């Protein structure tokens, strides 16, 4: 009963916060609510025995990406943002499409059948420790994608600098 209650709390808060995040008029508020949302998702990860993922969820998402969002918001002048419309005129159409897909997907989830279980049982992870198990896999079987990911980050760093640094064309 306790796990269900736990999940119920997290799920309810996550959904509520998601709705709040996308409906706030002020983007700064959105970011703040999103911070809270990410902490809750991290909590859910802990609940799923994925402590390393929970850690990077907090560190990377909450600590880095959201701070980046905040920086950008501070760079832009958004005073008038508070007075204008939040949604596009045709938002009911968007609502219809998303609800329709959601209904279908929720209906489809019932017929989901999980595949056979792998070797990473809870006991195995407890013995090995989660971070070590993940790291072993990442640096052996997934070394090549890992290197590519680092390359992607490098490109992103350079790209971000190039894009943000460019002055207006008139100069």
């Amino acid at each position, binding site marked *: 009963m306790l796990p269900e209650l736990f999940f119920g709390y997290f799920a309810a808060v996550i959904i509520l916060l998601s709705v709040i995040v996308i409906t706030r008029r002020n983007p700064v508020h959105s970011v703040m609510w999103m911070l809270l949302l990410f902490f809750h998702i991290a909590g859910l990860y802990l609940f799923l025995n994925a402590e390393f993922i929970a850690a990077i969820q907090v560190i990377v998402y909450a600590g880095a990406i959201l701070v980046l969002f905040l920086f950008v918001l501070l760079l832009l002048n958004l005073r008038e943002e508070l007075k204008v419309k939040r949604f596009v005129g045709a938002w009911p159409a968007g609502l219809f*499409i998303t609800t329709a*897909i959601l209904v*279908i997907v929720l*209906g489809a989830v019932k017929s989901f059948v999980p595949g056979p279980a792998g070797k990473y049982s809870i006991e195995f992870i407890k013995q090995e420790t989660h971070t070590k198990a993940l790291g072993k896999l990442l640096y052996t079987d997934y070394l090549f994608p890992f290197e590519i990911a680092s390359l992607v980050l490098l490109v992103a760093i350079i790209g971000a600098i190039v894009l943000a640094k460019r002055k207006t064309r008139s100069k």
Partner: protein
Amino acid sequence: MSNYLLIPFLPLAAFLINILFGRKYLKENSHWVSILAVAGSWIVTVATLFDVLAGRVINEDLYSWIVSGEFKVSVGFLIDQLTAVMLIVVTTCSTLIHIYSVGYMHGDKGYYRFFAYLSLFTFCMLMLVMANNFLQLYFGWEGVGLCSYFLIGYYFDKKSASDAGKKAFIVNRFGDFGFGLGIIMIFLTFGTIYYEPVFSQAKGFASQTINFLGYDVHLMTLIALLLFCGSIGKSAQMPLHVWLPDAMEGPTPVSALIHAATMVTAGVFLVARCSPIFSLSETALMIVALTGAITSLFAATIGLVQNDIKRIIAYSTISQLGYMFLAAGVGAYTAGMFHLYTHAFFKALLFLCAGSVMHAMSGELDLQKMGGLKKYMPVTYWTMLFASLSIAGVPGFAGFFSKDEILWLAYSGSSPVGKFVWVIGTVVAFLTAFYSFRLIFLTFHGKFRGTHEQEHHLHESPKAMTIPLVILCIGAVASGWVGIPHLLGGGAHFTEFLKPVLGHPEAHGTHAEEWMVMAISIIAGFSGIGLAALFYLVKTDIPVMLTQKFNAAYKILWNKYYVDELYSFIIVRPAIWTAKNILIGITDARIIEAVVNGVPKGIGEFSRILRKVQTGLLQHYAAIMALGVLIIVAMMLLR
């Protein structure tokens, strides 16, 4: 012995060098490249001739050109006795005319272009005569036609010249169409287009017939006549002769090289080369002989009254080509080739002399405005006189031996039309002598009839022009001495030389008859000269009187039997009418343009509607994408 490859490829190299670098770098020095190349070809040709005289015949493939199933063609070379004769004719004339052109074309703005084309022509002509298969022959055949087109229209800013070029090209299409069909027929019949297997197998097909347009036609006759179509076009025989007189719009060296000495004789060469096929068909040979005879008479009569110096020689060329076909048609291929060989020299010489006269007269072509040029240009006079004596068949000169051989073999041969063509040939000999000397007398004798300014300007041509004249003159006089008949104590070496390739017809006649034929032809020649002298030197009022008395006949001759007008009426005007009213007016404007303009217009209209979808708003795209996901997911569930 593979240096024979230099013969065609030296001129090709000269062409490439001239066409690529002539305009910017060589300019006034272009002639060196071409002359050196052609002279090199000539030297190699002479060396090759000695090899062939020693009995070595070359037949080699250089590389595979087309391989397609059964159909195999190589670029290959066959150098036998017949080719050797042609090679000597082509390279000798070409070399001399290249040198002559240095003087004649001096200062022309397209100098490099002229030499480039001349070299290209030489290359194509050599490829033509050296081919060992029909396709390469066809390549050379079309190549020389193309060069002929280029060079006739050399002064392309002159409308008459560019028109003449087109006319030559288009008229040749008619002949070449037949020629192409002939080659296809050969391939279908023999399964190969190499000379050697074709000719050796030809006998086996001698009696075969084929259904052609609903008639059973003798196969060899059909092939021979189709090939002969090509000859008719290229060698300007009736009824496709109309392009050659107009071709005189080109520079005179071109007329001499292409339209007298070499290219136009390709038709004769073709018939001689294919003699194993022609010999199998009596009908085809008869048609060849009659075409030749009629053409030669026809052209000679036109030549009687023309006043344009180059056109007279052009008609004379047609007439002499007719003579060659006449010879081939009675089976005397060697005689035809002999005449081709001597004719190349004296006719090239006649043209070059005419060019020299034109040069002195600042481009004047009208005989009636010349006269008395003898004292101004002695070299031209004497060389042209010798050439005319040669063409008139005066004993001892080259033309005499070849013409006599043709007439004798026509008379004595086994051809059913032999006697008939002999009569025509003799008449033509008389006419030839007449108009040739009419030309000489009107040009060089009597009083000068041009303007005072022209008279002041008269001068002998430069050395570059006169030296080739003298050399060709030696050829025009002496080239016949290699074929002096047995009757006159000669060895008939020319005939003996070509015998392995062309064979030799049997003459069914006595010595007395042979003497008679020779005597008649000599009489015809001399009486022609005499009559010309009477008309144009002694009693110059006779021609005027005759033209008045026989006005109708004169008009017909003056207008060349109205052949051009006839063609214009039957072919050209309907073709132009069709082109203008149906092809341009309906097909082009209504159908093709409607499609060509309509399709893009429709696409434009459609896209004008379609592009409304592209709102440029990011969320519209995203929404459509989401909608797509919705539809796909729904479809998967509903299935």
